[in-house]
């Protein structure tokens, strides 16, 4: 309830037109950011509790979830530091019908210059196709981005259940070089 109240408060305050449109002084806008950030943290706590109790129902071990709130700028401490071993990605679909979103996370290059190799397994045990792309250059130089990730992994979480979860198992290995998709320059020529 305490977390929900933080979120309610944030929703109430940030419905003000100044919060929506940016018609406020910078320090007021910074305060809107602070309130939204607190609500975001509270939301993740609720997510973690719900995900843990859901997995407990099925007898699965409890997991310590790490959210990555800065995925919008391709920054994620968890996936960047996990260069070997296994991890779980639990995806929650808040929509009342199935959807198949793209799941994206940033990864770093190893000493050999290539990111680790990933094997992603869906809840039915099928291997899920994925790509490893180099991040676009403007992302690498974003001011305020605190990340060494130069690549991103993406895959499609197919047919997520309505208002439900699906967990994907990711096995990370450095055994062989990852086949990163190459960025190919197009020869654009005005004279032609």
């Amino acid at each position, binding site marked *: 309830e305490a977390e929900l109240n933080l979120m309610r408060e944030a929703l109430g305050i940030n419905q003000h037109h100044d919060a929506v449109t940016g018609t406020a002084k910078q320090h007021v806008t910074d305060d809107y950011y602070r309130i939204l950030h607190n609500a975001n943290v509270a939301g993740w706590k609720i997510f973690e509790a719900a995900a843990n109790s859901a997995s407990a129902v099925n007898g699965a071990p409890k997991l310590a979830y790490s959210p990555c709130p800065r995925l919008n700028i391709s920054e994620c401490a968890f996936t960047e530091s996990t260069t070997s071993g296994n991890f*779980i*990605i639990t*995806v929650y679909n*808040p*929509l009342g019908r199935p959807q198949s979103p793209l799941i994206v996370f940033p990864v770093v290059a190893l000493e050999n210059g290539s990111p680790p190799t990933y094997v992603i397994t869906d*809840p039915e045990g099928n291997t899920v196709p*994925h790509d490893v792309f180099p991040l676009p250059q*403007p992302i690498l130089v974003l001011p305020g981005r605190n990340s060494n990730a130069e690549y991103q992994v993406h895959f499609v979480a197919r047919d997520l259940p309505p208002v439900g979860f699906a967990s994907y198992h990711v096995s990370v290995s450095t055994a062989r070089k990852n086949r990163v998709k190459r960025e190919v320059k*197009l020869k654009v020529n005005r004279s032609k």
Partner: protein
Amino acid sequence: KQGFVFENDFYVITLDSATGHVSSIERKDQPGISASVRQEFMFYNGMRGFNQNFSDRASGAYIFRPESQAPLTMRDQLDVSFVAGDVLTEIRAYTEDWASHVIRFRSDSEVLESEWIAGPIPIDDGVGKELISRFVTDIRNGAKFYTDSNGKLTEPRTRDYRPTFELGDDTEAVSRNYYPVLSRSYIRDEDQSDPNLSRQLTILTDRAQGGGSIVDGALELMVHRRLLYDDAFGVGEALNESAFGTGLVARGLHKFILTSVSNAAKLYRAEEVKDIMRPLYAFAPTSLSAKKWL
């Protein structure tokens, strides 16, 4: 000669080989539905002023008032590259250091994406700027474009026209045709004698933006602005977000769909709820193998 051609199950997208801009989009599954489309980043210089009288009115947090009545162009020839994978393809187009985007499409999707990165907007020349992403097409929209009203009702907007009063001459061509776009905007062929052959270009936004159809066939959305004068409506500060000492950088998404008018609403309605109800995901370490985890 014909340009660089990309395709998925639904679209053929062609880039101009001379400039790198998108030049046309064609539906593979809907014969007759194709359009010449040029997307580019452009900008308006924000009007300077101290708000002493009407002509001295500055562009600011509340007021959008460009200095000229046509947007200024950026570099015509883009740096373009692509990355193609098993899941999706990305076309990466770099216009300037402060304006670029990635056109992304999955092999099986009717929705194309333009993920833009804008900023920091340069102000070394002492001029505030308002950056737009503009789509110019051959769609004959007859001065009409459509925006949503808080994601619900779709409102038709007619250029230089108000339904309840006579629009005077003392207004400005760009500003008077800008409207709020909360989640979607579209233009479509005015002639809908055959709705299966009339075209509609819909753009879904991931945030509220301003937009308009300033000339026929065009649809523009303002993605970022940085201004150096207050517009005297109460903020008392210029809209100059100088984060990190360099100015704010924004990253966002426009989803765009070209389809027949008869098919458009069922596509964009389904897609826009996915934007509002985006999936959340989080990561957790495990010592279990995939087999044991299952």
